[in-house]
């Protein structure tokens, strides 16, 4: 992929042409073919081993529903607990205020480099280019995020940002970006690639002035922020620098540690098929007096950026999302085209619902349309989010606003006009049936306006008469 990082939704090319390119990108297709044997298989195995999984899901959904109904209360409680432990909370209505807040914290700390744990909210607010433009170097430490940072690409998956890359792509990246790399070194195996990244990033952790992480959960009870990783990069990021900044959207709140325990039981199983991710870390406030290590300062940057506007609407259910990625791991459309074709920070079924909310529907009308409505995403969603229903809501809004494609609008308009006039419907159907019969009685290989269908298959042999006529005849006979 040679996609340059740019604000999402601003590609000059259409979704259809990006998708078409993706489907003939052999490297990408190799990477995507691993989805069914990778995350999806491991998820099924992990869930089958826990007979109580449906009860855990129901509990998890009830917890989030309760939080959303009382979100203001739990946010204030969370804030009070962070402050009581010596930390600061910064409220940011939009992406711009979030970027400015992070920058101000970095500048106050005199930061030159910041290490970053994986954060989709940081992607959402386009933090890296903004820090760079202000003279601060962000260093991504999650392996997948590091790979897309040096490749100058956006993430193609919410939990596996470099899922579109094969090991050969990674080797090529390291050979062109790591100047000290011995040309003779064997980098054909994933193990050696991981070792190379570990070695390159190790000094960066110790040199960074500020560490920025995301949050999987915010615990109101104690003002704790929670990160879940397998690599340990988030922990090195938040424990070695002088300042720890947590970047989180407001809906990540859970009431107590017991609630977090329940959500953790569904998160890793749904995401990577692990019972628990390797490192789950609860952090609150800066290091305490006498502590052997830890940051001197602790900041939580709470980002709204469209979430509050979903509350109380048909899209509120989307705020239960815990960003496990199961919906995209099981989506036939994502599986065919990968994440970049969506041209959005959040991709796949959850992205098709979330992106129009965060970035506006205009320019993203293709996303909720990029679905076969097979329903697999809703089936595997641990939080019971009716993703196809919510995509349909966006389609309706898009149609109402007049932003759907002209051919679709014409077609639907014509159908609606006929459907409301039974005599006209019957007349047109009879004419069409007769015409089709004349075109071919053994099947139709080519038909105007339907090349997309007939390119791969024939139309069945036409009956020559409409269903209504045959039905009427049968009833008489």
């Amino acid at each position, binding site marked *: 992929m040679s996609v340059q990082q740019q604000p999402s939704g601003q590609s000059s090319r259409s979704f259809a042409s990006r998708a078409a390119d993706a489907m003939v990108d052999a490297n990408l297709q190799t990477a995507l073919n691993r989805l069914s044997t990778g995350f999806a298989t491991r998820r099924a195995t992990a869930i089958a081993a826990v007979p*109580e999984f449906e009860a855990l899901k129901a509990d998890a959904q009830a917890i989030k529903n309760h939080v959303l109904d009382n979100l203001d209360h739990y946010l204030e409680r969370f804030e009070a607990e962070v402050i009581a432990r010596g930390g600061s909370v910064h*409220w940011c209505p939009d992406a711009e*205020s979030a970027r400015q807040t992070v920058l101000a914290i970095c500048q106050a700390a005199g930061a030159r480099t910041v290490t970053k744990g994986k954060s989709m909210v940081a992607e959402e607010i386009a933090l890296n280019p903004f820090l760079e433009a202000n003279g601060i170097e962000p260093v991504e430490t999650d392996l997948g995020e590091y*790979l897309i940072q040096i490749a100058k690409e956006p993430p193609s998956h919410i939990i596996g940002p470099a899922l579109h890359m094969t090991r050969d792509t990674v080797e090529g990246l390291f050979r062109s970006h790591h100047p000290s790399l011995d040309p003779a070194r064997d980098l054909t195996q994933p193990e050696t690639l991981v070792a190379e990244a570990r070695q390159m990033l190790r000094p960066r952790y110790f040199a960074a002035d500020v560490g920025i992480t995301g949050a999987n959960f915010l615990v109101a009870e104690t003002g704790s922020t929670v990160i879940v990783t397998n690599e340990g990069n988030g922990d090195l990021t938040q424990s070695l620098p002088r300042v720890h900044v947590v970047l989180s959207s407001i809906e990540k709140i859970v009431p107590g540690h*017991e609630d977090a325990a329940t959500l953790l039981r569904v998160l890793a199983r749904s995401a990577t098929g692990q019972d628990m991710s*390797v490192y*789950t870390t609860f952090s609150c406030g800066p290091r305490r007096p006498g502590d*052997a*290590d830890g940051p001197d300062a602790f900041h939580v940057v709470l980002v709204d950026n469209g979430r509050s506007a979903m509350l*109380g609407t048909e899209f509120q259910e989307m705020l239960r999302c815990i960003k496990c990625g199961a919906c995209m791991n099981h989506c036939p459309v994502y599986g065919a085209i990968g994440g970049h074709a969506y041209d959005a920070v959040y991709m796949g079924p959850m992205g098709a619902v979330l992106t129009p909310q965060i970035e506006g529907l205009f320019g993203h009308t293709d996303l909720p349309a990029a679905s076969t409505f097979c329903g697999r995403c809703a089936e595997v969603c641990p939080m019971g989010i009716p993703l196809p229903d919510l995509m349909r809501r966006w389609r309706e809004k898009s149609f109402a606003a007049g932003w759907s494609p002209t051919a679709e609008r014409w077609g639907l308009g014509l159908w609606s006009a006929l459907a409301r006039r039974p005599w006209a419907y019957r007349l047109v159907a009879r004419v069409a049936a007769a015409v089709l019969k004349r075109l071919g009685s053994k099947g139709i290989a080519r038909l105007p306006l339907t090349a997309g269908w007939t390119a791969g298959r024939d139309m069945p042999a036409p009956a020559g008469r409409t269903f209504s006529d045959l039905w009427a005849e049968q009833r008489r006979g």
Partner: protein
Amino acid sequence: MADKSPISTPAPTPAPTPSSGPANRARVLGAVRAALGRGPLPTGRAQGLDATLARHQRHTIPARGRADDLVAAFASAASGVAAEVLHLASLDEVPAALADHLASLNLPPALRLAPDPALAALPWHTRPLLAVEVGTGVPGVQVGLALAEAGVAETGTLVLTSGAERSTTLNFVPDVQYVILPHGRLDGALEDAWARLRNAHGAAWPPRTVNLVTGPSRTGDIEQTMIMGAHGPRRLVILMVPGA
């Protein structure tokens, strides 16, 4: 980074004005309340939510989180996530077990202890060739030893905490991480460990950092294949000992 984007002269960016903080806070909370169609919760309702929170109500706990034999359940779960589990007869055996295990890995006989007096008090003199130092996770530390505060049998998870006698960085910087887990600190489920920690820490609960560690570091970022040793320890060895 070799190919970092050209960094231009920093554009002067105005820091948020002092008034923007409270104003933004009011904006976000106001938007949330407007969307919910109400003002702040009535005092009684808010106190009710806080009272519920203080009861630490538990949700569904899977049967595997209620094992009878916690030692066997923990060891099995931890082995399942690629941690090595060694069963020792007593804490006094720790120095010999570590020296032998390091030798089996062809590693130098040296390790760094978290600043816990209980670790310093182990009979290190029984293995005089083992170079033992105390401290945090600074560059170059290859091997670390910590004492777990709890262990969760449901998932084979170690509960490690920060504090004056603990080191969070030592849990992540070394290549090889040894952790002592006394049987008396085993819990069935994470909820049991929360109760244990609340009880032990009192008003200081929770410590700055609670690390739940389930196996050694790994990544699935290259071709969705789990590769061990991403950024944290490549190897995790758990020394299970009887006692508290």
